[in-house]
């Protein structure tokens, strides 16, 4: 196991999936479930003669933050881009299900159990979605994860943490959108269609996927914070993500409803006000939306230090 105290000061961006899983929860509390010794490898990669990982690129387990059991899912972008196949998807669904079942058992036994001692799920995303080597199984697994998130509603809060290299795209982009709260760093990226595919669809003049600044302006943490899609924008360290998660661990599940983007008729109406704004503004660039939200100098705001950004940014009100 990695040294917990040393992990805290590490860049979250540079951390692998296991470091993130261990570092997010209290020191010494993380127990890996379905770890490498279980050799849960993808049979489909074996059939193709591809290299496998003994955890299939997803670290799953349970730890504690204070009294709260935190069920952790952490995706490894260094293994086939963090893509999700049959085994990885089954691990994700299994962890969410177990958190719900454990919550139900605890609440039945201890009706007065405070929120801060009830299970919570934390998902550290680093993925482009479906693993093409086993595409159909990966697709079906995504549907099961969405179903599990709906089953968790009003019982177990699910928190998304996005600040790793690959970002969070494809089918996992809407899985993240369906969680209760989203914590990002400025290096995190969240979307559905990756930059290369947009360029392919629209042409390089409309969207140049090699323009890193443009890509970050469209799907990066600062932009998603302006849009309200990210609830919290934290520094790029394990300690900062952990501190935000710990703050959320104090809250009852009902308090998470106000952080959601989607999941009720009222929230759909709210999002549609954003869609109407999109049709009206026809933004060429995310900066146009920042300006509309009341940020007069979007360029300066995007380039300045994160602390200044957090202090002065105006977020879009819908």
């Amino acid at each position: 196991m990695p040294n917990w105290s040393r992990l805290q000061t590490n860049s979250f961006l540079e951390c692998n999936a296991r470091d993130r899983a261990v570092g997010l929860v209290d020191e010494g509390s993380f127990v890996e479930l379905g770890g490498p010794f279980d050799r849960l490898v993808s049979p489909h990669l074996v059939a193709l003669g591809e290299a496998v990982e003994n955890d299939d690129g997803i670290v799953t387990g349970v730890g504690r933050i204070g009294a709260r059991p935190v069920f952790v899912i952490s995706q490894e972008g260094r293994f086939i881009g963090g893509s999700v196949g049959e085994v990885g998807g089954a691990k994700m669904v299994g962890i969410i299900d177990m958190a719900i079942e454990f919550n139900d058992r605890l609440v039945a036994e201890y009706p007065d159990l405070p929120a801060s001692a009830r299970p919570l799920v934390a998902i550290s995303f680093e993925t482009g979605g479906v693993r093409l080597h086993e595409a159909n199984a990966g697709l079906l697994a995504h549907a099961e994860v969405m179903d599990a998130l709906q089953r968790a509603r009003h019982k177990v809060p699910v928190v998304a943490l996005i600040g790793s290299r690959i970002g969070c795209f494809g089918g996992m982009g809407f899985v993240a959108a369906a969680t209760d709260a989203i914590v990002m760093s400025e290096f995190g990226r969240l979307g559905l269609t990756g930059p290369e595919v947009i360029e392919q669809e629209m042409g390089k003049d409309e969207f140049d996927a090699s323009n890193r600044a443009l890509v970050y302006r469209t799907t990066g943490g600062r932009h998603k914070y302006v849009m309200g899609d990210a609830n919290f924008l934290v520094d790029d360290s394990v300690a900062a993500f952990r501190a935000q998660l710990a703050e959320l661990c104090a809250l009852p599940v009902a308090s998470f409803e106000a952080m959601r983007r989607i999941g009720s008729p009222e929230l759909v109406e709210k999002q549609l006000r954003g869609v109407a704004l999109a049709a009206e503004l026809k933004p060429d660039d995310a900066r146009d939306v920042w300006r509309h939200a009341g940020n007069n100098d979007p360029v300066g705001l995007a380039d300045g230090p994160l602390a200044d950004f957090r202090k002065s940014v105006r977020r879009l009100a819908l």
Partner: protein
Amino acid sequence: METLLGQGRAAIDLIVDAGSFTEGTVGARTFEDPDFGPGAVVGTALLEGETVTVIASDAEAFNEKFPVVYSGIIGLEEGYKMAQAVYATLAADAEKEAAKKRAIVLIVDTPGNGPGKVEEIFGMNKATGAYQLALAEARLAGHPIVAMVVGRAISGAFLCHGLQADRILSLTSEFQTMIHVMPITSVSRIIKKDVELLEELAKANPVFAAGPAFFFKLGGVEQLVETIDGMRPAIAAQIADIRKAKSDAKALTGPRGRGALGAERGGRTVRPTVQALLRTEFAAVEDRFRPQAG
């Protein structure tokens, strides 16, 4: 052989009772603006005499406000409009007992989610996610949901419009139905394996091959339908069977039901093993995570 690909509106008329489809009305809600989410068709119909909500895609429609939406693509407006139709269905039957809640029929022919810059700036992931959560909520509340694949059921669009249903039916591939994440030629290019090798492997392992027959083997499609006329009775029979399954605590429908079916049909066999192992390992350490005395 005939095909319904690209003909979502015609498919509605072939599936529901003759002349029974009322577009733009679901329960108390009406969708009056013809320019709002034109790629999504929502309304109410009768299916063998039972009231159902119908949600389909119109491949002929073009969304003037969001030019990436054509050919049945689900864009920002379309995803939210489909979600609204589901919420209107929930509201309409909110007072009814679970067994009496109306069915939702998803007619599936969609090539993708809106792939654009504006879509990413505003968050296309939320629109498609919103629709899926609404469907999952309706399914868990007791509404039987049947998806009928009549054309294209591609990747994220199929996740959005189809894979949250209780049961999924598909016309066989003679009708040019397509179910896949990516054609095998594209998979081959990206994962750098010869098409011939992939096609050979696909005979034994359906996980990356395209088409309804492979999804059937994986448990991703419950039933294949061999004739156009066979769709209505097959959907009606599924609705009745789903109602029965929902009243039985042990019977699984929806994504989990298809997970179990994947193991049964031999297409996805490791999934249950993985989940059983996680449970066993957690049981061994559970006490550490229970409320501590004192």
